[in-house]
């Protein structure tokens, strides 16, 4: 259903600056999650941590094809979307730690980071919970004539929620500029989606009048190019679009999910990590195409790592909100 990375691709239609920006964002997400994992395992991060590692090409490929003022909705596995849309790392880490300086003043946490400045309507801890929100944002964009589009990121498990089909139907009827991006990483928590998905995903979208394409979610250029096409079409009045990305989460459903062999094999994990790592695939290609030599790429890694360490330090040092803040922000 998905096309493998096109290693024969002689040269890219994407200019080098953008290619390197995409690389930088992907590394940023990967290192962000490494830190989140570290903070969590050191019991410095409360709650749950659902890492995006392995799926970076999707958030980056899609968000780089968006305008800064376009909207996105995200999921429980939302750090990647948030970073890709341009959020500040320090305030993200602060939110993960429940600090006052966080994006949500510590009230939301990892699963609820939201940021009007980057058009992030919010991560969501209800699977499928943001499908109506993204579609509604597209309705606003159309009514207000802003030319914005809305991207709804969700996992393959969210295909189980009837809400998706209700809103896709309305999006088509009303020709709304919304792009439904399904991150199919094969699992719903600890259950393989062969147990949860019948039929065919793109046929479902088609049944509701939503044209769709599937793409290799490990190939950031493929994601970018396909997303751009769908986004441009939605923006031009072509109505809702569906982008199905095949991918894989490299770690557990959440950081605590260590013993995984009862639901997926070490071999499978190894295969994806060694053969299908979106960052390795991309850096190899960038080097092979001489868009950047190893040195340049390592420099980017180092810069990002430094940036992230600063962000973590900021989060660690910032204070918790005082208890009296608990009953503030209930009503606007």
């Amino acid at each position, binding site marked *: 259903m998905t096309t493998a990375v096109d290693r024969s691709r002689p040269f890219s239609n994407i200019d080098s600056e953008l290619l390197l920006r995409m690389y930088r964002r992907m590394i940023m997400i990967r290192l962000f999650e490494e830190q989140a994992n570290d903070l969590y395992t050191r019991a410095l991060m409360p709650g749950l941590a659902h890492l995006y590692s392995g799926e970076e090409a999707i958030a980056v490929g899609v968000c780089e094809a968006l305008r800064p003022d376009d*909207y996105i*909705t995200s999921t429980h596995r939302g750090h990647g979307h948030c970073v890709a849309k341009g959020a500040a790392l320090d305030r993200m880490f602060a939110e993960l730690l429940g600090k006052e300086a*966080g*994006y*949500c*003043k*510590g*009230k*939301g946490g990892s699963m*609820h980071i*939201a*940021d*009007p400045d980057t058009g992030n*309507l*919010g991560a*969501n801890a*209800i699977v499928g*919970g*943001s*499908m*109506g*929100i*993204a*579609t*509604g*944002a*597209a*309705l*606003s*964009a159309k*009514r*207000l004539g802003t030319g914005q589009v*809305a991207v709804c990121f969700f996992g393959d498990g969210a295909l189980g929620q*009837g*809400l998706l089909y*209700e*809103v896709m*139907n*309305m999006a088509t*009827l*009303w020709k709304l500029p919304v792009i439904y991006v399904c991150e199919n990483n094969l699992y719903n928590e600890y259950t393989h989606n062969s147990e949860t998905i019948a039929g065919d995903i793109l046929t479902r979208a088609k049944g509701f009048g939503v044209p769709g394409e599937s793409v290799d979610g490990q190939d950031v250029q493929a994601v970018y190019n396909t997303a751009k096409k769908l986004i441009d079409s939605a923006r031009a009045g072509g109505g809702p679009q569906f982008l199905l990305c095949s991918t894989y989460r490299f770690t557990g459903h959440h950081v605590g999910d260590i013993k995984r062999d009862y639901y997926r094999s070490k071999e499978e994990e190894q295969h994806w990590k060694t053969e299908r790592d979106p960052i390795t695939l991309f850096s190899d290609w960038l080097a092979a195409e001489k868009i950047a030599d190893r040195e340049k790429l390592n420099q980017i890694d180092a810069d990002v790592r430094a940036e992230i360490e600063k962000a973590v330090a900021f989060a660690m040092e910032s204070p918790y909100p005082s208890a009296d803040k608990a009953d*503030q*922000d*209930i*009503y*606007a």
Partner: protein
Amino acid sequence: MPETQTAVRELTIGEAIKETLAEEMRRDPTVFILGEDVAEAGTVYKVLSGLVDEFGPERVLDTPISEAGFAGIAVGAAMTGMRPIVDIMFGDFIGLTMDQMVNQAAKIHYMSGGKWKVPMVMRATMGATRRSAAQHSQSLHAWLCHIPGLKVVMPSTPYDAKGLWKTAIRDDNPVVIFEDKMMYRLKGPVPEGEYTIPFGVADIKRAGEDLTIVATSSMVQVALGAAKLLEEYDISTEVIDPRTLWPLDEKTLIESARKTSRVIVMDEGYGRYGVNAELASVIAEGAFYDLEAPVKRIGAMHVPIPFSPPLEDATVPTEQSVLEAALALCGKS
């Protein structure tokens, strides 16, 4: 308040609601309505009929039968610059929207640390005795009153309907308005001019000295009818309508209770674990040392609502049943 206004006309609650929506839609282009059969049909009770002619099908938007879906779409539209009014044909269907209303609409402002706002209104019907049976007669507003982040409005007169609706549309938070389907034809004075009614301010519909009846929505009319009957027994009844259940005007309820020392609370929701329990608790706590008798709760019988007229009639409070309860409460029976 009406006095301070210009010429006063009589409108039905249905007319008052439609007039308010039209005025607000003229005033603010971001206000729009979406729901089933809201456009040409003007809803099943025809309350919105004609609006589509003035504002067009994009602002009076017919939807598929997808309550969860269009409630969710309203949440997103509200966050991004519009002011949607979601029409739920029968309040019995709000179960379908509870996840969107409770996990999304009610919490987004708080979860985002006050960043995003959700200025939307949901309107739903309530009320029995229309022989519509168990799935078309419920009054489920207690569910929403229980959820921080939502506001719940229950108009009982045309005047209140207009003033509360204006406040709701201009509020930056999700507001749910319950309208008793049996009251759309109720007539009452509605001044020509512009006015709003603040949330959290109860209205004393009738002043009295011996007994307080706190009633919501259509129960206000039943309470006023009973109050009239009680005059013959020399019982002076005060009837108070909280008008909004959240925010709740506890002060007015408690003061009246302390004055009369005898209280009945009336709400048409199911009798147990409902709005009456909260109202009774607030009063029992706030007027504890002044009450002569326990607060009497009168709600719908705690049963699924039956279809057959003699059965359904037995499940709802009536002037007669309130009269009897009041006499017992005042030791006159």
